């Protein structure tokens, strides 16, 4: 069964079309990257999947059920979401941030505390950060907390919006690898928005290429690297590919 189905969805704000009619099926357990330039409609597409945004037309099915039939807040407690700007609550400690969704779900405090410890281990943060304020952490540590918060209520789906955008390259690669490992370890269905095509090709099982509100291609990284008839898609893939080849040449000396 498909984890996520977008059935002919489109979205416009104030008469301006940000997402043209798009259909997309994401199978359970896949790691899918949405790539494209800014304004391509990637984030809009992602927000349709957990009801943060409502489609102007079309339906969204999560595990076979139309999400329009459920209260949005309840739906979102079952889907992990990592924000572009991290969005940790500045007035709560790290532990309270991570435990927020279980708290909303009414878990007993002892269970939440145990879950917070387990998640800190999972995202490779020392347990003593639990009592700190988000402002006392580095950017990389903050985004690890963001990932832990998204996973706290044991969702089967994880949505990430430019999760590594604000990080330095070394932290970025390390965290990306850790997230991919978590995806495999927890059997998640993951959808990640990124403008870094190289990152998408290296991490994801499937890549959706977007431009100007259109979903132009949906294929595996290997297929995309082999070439694509659409010139926009071909150009987008060609750039990191050429860079990688030049780096390889350089390394060979």
């Amino acid at each position: 069964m498909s984890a996520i189905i977008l059935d002919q969805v489109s979205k416009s704000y104030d008469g301006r079309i940000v997402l043209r009619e798009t259909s997309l099926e994401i199978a359970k357990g896949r790691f899918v990257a949405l790539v494209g330039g800014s304004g391509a409609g990637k984030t809009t597409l992602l927000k349709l999947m957990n009801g943060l945004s409502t489609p102007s037309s079309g339906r969204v099915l999560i595990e076979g059920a139309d999400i329009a039939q459920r209260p949005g807040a309840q739906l979102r407690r079952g889907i992990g979401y990592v924000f572009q700007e991290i969005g940790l609550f500045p007035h709560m400690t790290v532990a309270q941030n991570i435990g927020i969704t279980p708290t909303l779900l009414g878990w007993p405090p002892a269970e939440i505390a145990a879950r917070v410890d387990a998640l800190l281990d999972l995202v490779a943060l020392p347990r003593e950060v639990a009592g700190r304020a988000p402002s006392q952490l580095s950017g990389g540590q903050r985004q690890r907390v963001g990932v832990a918060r998204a996973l706290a209520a044991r969702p089967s789906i994880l949505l990430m919006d430019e999760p590594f955008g604000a990080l330095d390259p070394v932290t970025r690669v390390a965290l990306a690898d850790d997230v991919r490992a978590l995806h495999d370890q927890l059997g998640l269905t993951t959808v990640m928005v990124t403008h870094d095509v190289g990152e998408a090709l290296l991490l994801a099982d499937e890549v959706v290429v977007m431009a100007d509100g259109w979903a132009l291609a949906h294929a595996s990284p290997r297929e995309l690297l082999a070439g694509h008839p659409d010139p926009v898609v071909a150009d987008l893939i060609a750039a990191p590919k050429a860079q990688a080849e030049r780096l390889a040449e350089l390394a060979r000396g």
Partner: protein
Amino acid sequence: MLPILRNAAAGVSGVDPAVVEAARGVGMTDRQRLWRVELPLAAPVIMAGVRTAAVWTIGAATLSTPVGQTSLGDHIFSGLQTEDWVAVLVGCAASAGLALVVDGLLALIETGVARGRRRRLWSGGAGLLIGLLAALAPLAGRALSQGQAAYVIGAKNFSEQYILAELMAGRLEAEGASVQRRVNLGSVIAYRALASGEIDAYVDYSGTLWANILNRQDNPGRQAVLEGLRTELKARDGVVLLNALGFENAYALAMRRERAEQLGIKTLADLAAKAPQLTMGGDLEFFSRPEWKSVESAYGLKFKTKRQFQPTFMYRALAGREADVISAFSSDGRIAADDLVLLADPKGALPPYDAVILVSPKRADDRRLLDALGPLGGSIGVQAMQAANYAVDRDTDKKSPTEAARMLRR
């Protein structure tokens, strides 16, 4: 309320949109988002609004004096009136000090909440609670002591009224009665307070009552006005007009003698001819009183400009030539002292203003009060009153109203 609401709205709408979206993203309902995220994050801004409102309210509370409530404004208003700058300073400093203390306590609560410091929170809250209890204590005291019922003597907001209130209070206290004073009442408020029994006695003026309370525009003569008031006030409100004190404090238009002679003005009729070149100064209520309307229409007065002053500053304005004509009171000691002339009123547009003691309906049969105040009737001549008023109003060797009342008793 306005600063609190505005700051609360500004605070909530000022929360980082990324954080608001995150709150939705983790599965909060709108209500949970408000209570768990938006209000806590807006708290410092909301508290700033509460603190602004608290300071503002303490400042504005001094304005409750003219409507008959006791406040720190009592010192400020009577101080301004009698030019007792120490009293004004005491009132202002106490008000400012209270504002600073309350602001400080609220700040303590705010930081206590923000940093989770229980002790700060509780000490701030306890301070406010103590202040509140201290403020309410007199009310409770009044409720408890209702049985022995002290006499309440009222006064409007000028020196003569303070002196006469002290005179009446002094006579009651000499009889062993306990007396409260409620000063700085507005003209109409004083009468209403008397009619409803909030105050037991005060001094008013026949013309004022005739025009403002009975809404009469005619002027049947001094004695007829007094008799008319005695019967009509008793019939309408149960208020007892005890007796006339013996002097008039009439509204009259006054000019500096040399200015009046230079312009050849002796009467209001003469004044009407020159009025378009002159500036008229009135006290704060004069231009809205029926007496002014009647003088204005009887003589066709049209001034170049009209300005309003506190009575004290009105006499200064006349001396400093900021005003050519002012609304004076015939019993004011400054008329003789400043060498002013009162303009004659040949058409009788201004009614007589005999000072009379009024007694509230509930004290109408109180022998002790009536016996104490009754002998004051006919005992104060206009010169004696002018002298007592001037003792309080003059700039040097000032007397307090209590001392001036002693001058009248002799």
